């Protein structure tokens, strides 16, 4: 449970090819980390697999920042 932020950060860093310290709580995938809309879909797919959860489309749309992702996954897993 406590390692969720680190695991999420690792996925984001690997997928978007950004520096780890750029992935802050409020960092927006699209505005700050250079993701395009398809990247955000792929990130959600990767989160689903890493944490064995299902993220419905309407929930996926609300996951805009690193913090959003961590919060959602904590609540879902």
């Amino acid at each position, binding site marked *: 449970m406590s390692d969720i932020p680190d695991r999420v950060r690792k996925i984001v860093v690997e997928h978007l090819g950004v520096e780890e310290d750029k992935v802050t709580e409020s960092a927006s995938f699209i505005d700050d980390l250079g993701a395009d809309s*398809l990247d955000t*879909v*792929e990130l959600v*797919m990767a989160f689903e697999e890493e944490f064995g959860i299902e993220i419905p489309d309407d929930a996926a749309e609300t996951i805009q920042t690193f913090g959003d992702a961590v919060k959602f996954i904590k609540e879902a897993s």
Partner: protein
Amino acid sequence: MFDLTGKNALITGASGGIGGAIAKALHEAGATVGLSGTREAPLQELAAELGERAFVLPCNLSDPEAVAALPKQAADAMGSVDILVNNAGITRDNLFMRMSDDEWQQVLDVNLTATFKLCKGVLRGMMKARWGRIVNISSIVGATGNPGQGNYAAAKAGLVGMTKSLAYEVASRGITANAVAPGFIETAMTDKLNDDQKAGIMGQIPAGRMGTAEEIAAAVLYLSSQEAAYVTGATLHVNGGMAML
């Protein structure tokens, strides 16, 4: 020339003339094939003829639940779906003024909506693999129109726009999406035409003959190949010059 060894292909409408030829061509190039269709017997026959690397995956595309389940069934059977060929199609021809809502809806459901859902269903695996080929079988009438086929032409034209939009979205992930638009092809569907109708059609085909299912299959094989990696959002017209688009 085209080697599909190690690739897994799902083909809908494989019980029909064109679908069967497509399955054979991809199989001959080394692909494992998932044969989908409504009628199981011809699928079993085809699978027996192909031998290894062939799976029968019956599916009624007018049943939304069956459509939703098919991509996973195919991936479970073959390991993945690297190539999707949306070939299945139905006709419910009628003059515009007589066409019922039901005739319209059935054709749109199977020919367009099911194709959308199958494309969507296989994308996740293709995105992860950073490789995928989607080939949607359109029709010449999608581009030219045809009396009595308002529903069919709408669905087949719709496929082209859908394919192009999809091609835009996934091009950066190594996935291509293309359409093949057959003209008049010798199949059970065109066998039903009488001699006068056939003669009328021949007069409009510069090549002077109907096409064969194998000639459609060859186009699909190309678009499924590694060699066609830079071709996406295209519609390949295979019609003997009947419409030069």
